[in-house]
């Protein structure tokens, strides 16, 4: 067992994790930040579009520029970063943690406080031949294209018209690919209309109530067959259409990456509005296990802007428990963040989240 000089472990260096580190280091708290990627920022490092929100949440700033801005907030002397490293287990009752450092060696640490900010992973859907080379998740396409400068294909079929599907379609156009069609199984577009408008006016056809039936090809994708759906989501016979594409990009939702929390013994709860199975948490972002906090998409799929606030809340609540800041100062900052969170969720797109949070608050594991 390694004797640690760290006060807090933050798992995941995306928007939630970095904001947690910012608040913790501001209070003079020593943090170990473990991130699986080679650079910090999580999904932000591939978000080439400008963010919505308000100025204090980096609205109008491109996602790729936000990690640097967040790191400027962090006191480097107080944060130790293990990049390209993974937390492989959290063991109760003492929160012993195994870290696979640098993909080379395993270290064991123990922490009184842990913030899980592991984000979410992409969903997959079932269709014939969905294992053919040339079928990607939208996140993988973004990583290849925006992070490594590799174009995944020339002619694309995009599946899913949520914000990610719409944004990645636009980024594919920017990269010089042709998005031949965007299909969405629901009867209407799920993402923001402004994102849909900007690809439709550039000539990408969007077809709602349509899903993918199968991918065509033997060695790799050569095409796809789509089919229309009726109001009960049943396939309408005779509406099959073949489309010639070399790449199929799936953008069919995200699921919280909550496995570490389960491992640590955190109680889970199923809340559809927050992305399915999630660890229970209170309004301080603390799970049912004393000292383990959770923030960002790992506890409910939402936006980077709300993940950042949740990260700050988790950090501030730990600072409060550790008495590193006066209770009054802590409470003021916490209230400010809770108010911003409410504001972000107050529009029609926040209704689903608000309903999910209501269900969460209806249950207590404290």
């Amino acid at each position, binding site marked *: 067992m390694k004797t640690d000089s760290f006060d807090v472990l933050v798992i995941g260096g995306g928007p939630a994790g970095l904001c947690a580190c910012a608040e913790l280091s501001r209070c003079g708290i020593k943090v170990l930040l473990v991130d699986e990627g080679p650079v910090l920022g999580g999904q932000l490092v591939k978000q080439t*579009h*400008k*963010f*919505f*929100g*308000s*100025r204090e949440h980096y*609205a*109008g700033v*491109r996602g790729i520029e936000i990690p640097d801005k967040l790191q400027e907030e962090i006191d480097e002397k107080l944060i130790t970063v293990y990049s390209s490293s993974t937390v492989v287990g959290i063991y109760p009752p003492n929160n012993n943690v195994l870290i696979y450092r640098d993909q080379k060696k395993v270290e064991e640490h123990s922490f009184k406080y842990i913030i899980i900010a592991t984000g979410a992973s992409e969903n997959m859907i079932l269709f014939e031949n969905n294992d053919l080379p040339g079928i990607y998740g939208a996140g993988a396409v973004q990583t290849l294209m925006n992070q490594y400068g590799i174009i995944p294909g020339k002619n694309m079929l995009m599946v899913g*018209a949520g914000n990610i599907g719409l944004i990645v379609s636009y980024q594919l*156009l*920017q990269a010089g690919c042709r998005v031949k069609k965007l299909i969405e199984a629901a*009867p*209407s*577009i799920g993402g*923001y*209309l*402004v*994102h*849909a*408008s*900007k690809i*439709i*006016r*550039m*000539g*990408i*056809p*969007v077809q*709602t109530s349509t899903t993918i039936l199968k991918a065509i090809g033997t060695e790799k994708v050569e095409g796809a067959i789509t089919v229309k759906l009726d109001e009960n989501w049943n396939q309408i016979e005779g509406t099959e259409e073949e489309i010639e594409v070399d790449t199929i990009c799936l953008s069919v939702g995200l699921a919280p990456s909550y496995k570490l929390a389960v491992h640590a013994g955190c109680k889970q709860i199923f809340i559809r509005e927050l992305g399915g199975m999630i660890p229970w948490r209170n309004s301080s972002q603390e799970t049912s296990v004393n000292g383990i906090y959770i923030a960002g998409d790992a506890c409910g799929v939402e936006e980077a*802007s709300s993940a950042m606030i949740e990260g700050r809340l988790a950090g501030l609540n730990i600072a409060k428990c550790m008495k590193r800041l006066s209770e009054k100062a802590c409470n003021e900052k916490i209230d400010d963040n809770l108010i911003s969170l409410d*504001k*972000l*969720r*107050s*529009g*029609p*797109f*926040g209704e689903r989240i608000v309903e999910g949070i209501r269900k969460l608050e209806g249950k207590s594991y404290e």
Partner: protein
Amino acid sequence: MNNDIRKKGYLHYRDIGESRFPAEELIKEKALPVIECIERIPCNPCETSCPKGAIVVGENINDLPVCNYSLCSSCGICITRCPGLAIFMVKLTEKGSAVISIPWEIYPLPEKGDRFEGLDRLGNKICEGEITSIRKINHKTHIVSGEVSAEFYKEVRHFKIKNK
């Protein structure tokens, strides 16, 4: 929100509403923004970036922006700051044409004098025109202006540059 709009996913200018277009006598005087933001989402960079305070979202960040055209200096900063690329600028000229300025994030950038097909919000070609100016902006949402016949100023929202 009209469900029909969410179903088709784009806006016809009628969906935007006449009241969100500046009056024609105003855009004969100066270029003015058309803010095609009709959906309540938490966002306000148009308001915070406007140097004249002409655009107001207000206390609730989900509210829709409103532009006070008399304060607007036609600087175009809002075009480049809107994360939704939903702000355009229009100006009617004396010779019966319209200059439309659109946010541009596609490379290579067009050049002045390039001919283009004017596409409507559905991506259909409805007219032809010529690029009149390119303003390069360092945060990479540039402003490209193109001239089309005045009758199309409410509808052309993308320029498909013709091969030279």
